[in-house]
């Protein structure tokens, strides 16, 4: 073996070695992607491309956190965008009514999102599988309907009537991240770009640590076999609520970043086609896998660019892609890469084969 065998925590050599190799692979992929992401703005690709990348960072975070609940813990929640929306909305309302900077409001939004997420997690405790989908989708739809139908005037600005939540138009003029003031006007998009990138890095490390730790094992154990997990001391109620709480934080935080970036947030965020768009990222990348959300996000956003001319047909295309992956490629692109890696590459490269005959779970 190429690895000096000092088994950590006295655990057996082969498993620990495989884990270390996983970690090095993660670091290699991570640094490669990070290097590309850092360099891109230097090539001055223009405002549109930068904006799309910033959006990519936000969606990749949201899908990574969704993956913890949906993929790793196997709780089929569709309320992810509702958590994102409410986290962002909390920050936006604080900015609008109390003139609190979004930099502070974002933390309040994140904590509020944790609370919302925990409530949704608790509500789904007695349900299984598709019933969780139905309930969580209903929650998202109801929240959207409540905001959209809010037309009672809360205050007037001149003759214009403003509902408390902004109603169908949503909220605006609650301030932004302030990059326009700090940086020159032309450089401002770079601010959100690098902020998004930084948050994606932190968010990814956070998710990977959870997936690799005893938390992740407990979540997967409950996903795979709930009665067995409880007979081995893993309480469903506790860990289901925990996974909702953990994933809620970054989801809500990114909601505020979204609001700060676009300087507007409205109930359109809860539209079904946006949910489907993000869901296809989750499925195409590979449910429950570590890199799945980011890879899925890259693929779907590129596909989205390429299909720009299709207009409304795009959503049908994403629907078809999602269904195709669910039926034919359950484990997503990451699953395909893994089986090629294990089936073709490892057996043909002698120095790899002793460490990685079968590989780890995710």
């Amino acid at each position, binding site marked *: 073996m190429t690895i000096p065998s000092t088994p950590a*925590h006295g655990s057996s050599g082969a498993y620990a070695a495989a884990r270390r190799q996983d970690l090095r692979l993660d670091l290699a992929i991570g640094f490669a992607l990070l290097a590309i992401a850092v360099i891109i703005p230097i090539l001055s690709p223009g405002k549109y491309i930068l904006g799309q990348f910033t959006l990519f960072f936000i969606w990749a975070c949201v899908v990574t956190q969704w993956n913890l609940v949906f993929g790793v813990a196997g709780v089929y929640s569709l309320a992810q965008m509702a958590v994102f929306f409410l986290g962002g909305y909390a920050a936006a309302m604080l900015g609008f009514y109390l003139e609190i900077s979004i930099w502070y409001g974002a933390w309040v939004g994140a904590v509020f999102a944790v609370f919302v997420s925990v409530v949704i997690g608790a509500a789904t405790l007695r349900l299984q599988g598709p019933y969780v989908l139905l309930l969580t989708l209903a929650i998202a739809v109801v929240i959207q309907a409540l905001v959209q139908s809010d037309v009672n005037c809360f205050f007037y600005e001149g003759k214009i009537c403003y509902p408390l939540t902004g109603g169908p138009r949503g909220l605006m003029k609650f301030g932004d991240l302030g990059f326009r003031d700090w940086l020159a006007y032309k450089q401002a998009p770079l601010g959100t770009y690098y902020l998004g990138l930084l948050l994606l890095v932190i968010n990814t490390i956070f998710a990977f640590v959870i997936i690799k730790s005893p938390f992740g094992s407990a979540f997967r154990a409950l996903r795979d076999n709930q009665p067995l997990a409880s007979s081995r001391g893993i309480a469903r109620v506790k860990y289901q609520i925990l996974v909702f709480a953990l994933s809620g934080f970054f989801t809500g935080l990114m909601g505020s970043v979204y609001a700060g970036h676009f300087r507007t947030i409205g109930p359109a965020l809860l539209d079904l086609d946006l949910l489907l768009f993000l869901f296809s990222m989750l499925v195409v990348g590979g449910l429950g896998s570590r890199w799945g959300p980011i890879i899925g996000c890259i693929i779907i956003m590129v596909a989205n660019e390429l299909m720009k001319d299709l207009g409304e047909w795009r959503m049908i295309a994403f629907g078809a892609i999602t269904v195709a992956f669910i039926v034919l490629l359950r484990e997503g692109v990451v699953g395909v890469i893994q089986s090629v890696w294990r089936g073709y590459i490892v057996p043909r490269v002698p120095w790899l084969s002793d460490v990685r005959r079968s590989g780890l779970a995710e």
Partner: protein
Amino acid sequence: MDDSAHEPLLSCRGVFKYFGAMAAVDDLNLDVQQGEVLGIGGPNGAGKTTLFDVISGLNPASAGTITFDGNDITKANPVQICHAGLSRTYQLNAAFETLPVRENILCASYYGPRNVFFPKLRFDREAQRITDEVLEFTELLDYEMVIARELPVLQRKLLMIASALATRPRLLLLDEPVGGLNVDEIEVVMALVRRMREDRPLTVILIEHVMRFLVALSDRVVVMHHGSKIYEGLAEGLTKDQTVVDVYLGEGAARRLEHIIDEELHHGHDAS
């Protein structure tokens, strides 16, 4: 044998389990002494697995009391019962399908022995040590990196027992540990159960249809029928009990079993 004035480790008193009007477990009384192996046999639908579900908290009793080590566990949930030191396996080859063997056992050795209030970011030394020990004990070391769903059937059975052992139980409930295995594989599991008893003061209740296995390992046998106990005693008495022969064994099987019991007894004498 010392006179057991000790409290039984597990005691079921007047336990009922109803599904609608049907009593799957019907007024059952059962005592299991510390260190004993109790075998439970009986026809399909006799309520054997339901009894395990009731004891392990998966499907609580409709009436009656169950005490484990002096504590009332009738209403306790599976997690509490696991932490109290009572562990079970399942008839179906239950495992965490997508996890490697080692992680399957780590889950049990980390979360099983006591309540983990808030997990750490790594499995602790103790959990790793127990896992190594259990992997070696059940001869699964070579399989530790294999994903559970890709395991051969014998190793799946062993994994299930290994993950139950990793919770450090004092009472182990084995539900058909050799169901679906061939003769050689049965020997492997049999040897494992024997080693388990030598290794530590473990009390075992096992359900099994393979009478050879049941008779060879059990100190005492209970036969259930329609949720009640129709026989309780030594294995040797099974073939002489007309009710057991009629409802469960049948004449032919009873004769073959008698033969097996004879052989077992001889083995026992040879060994001593």
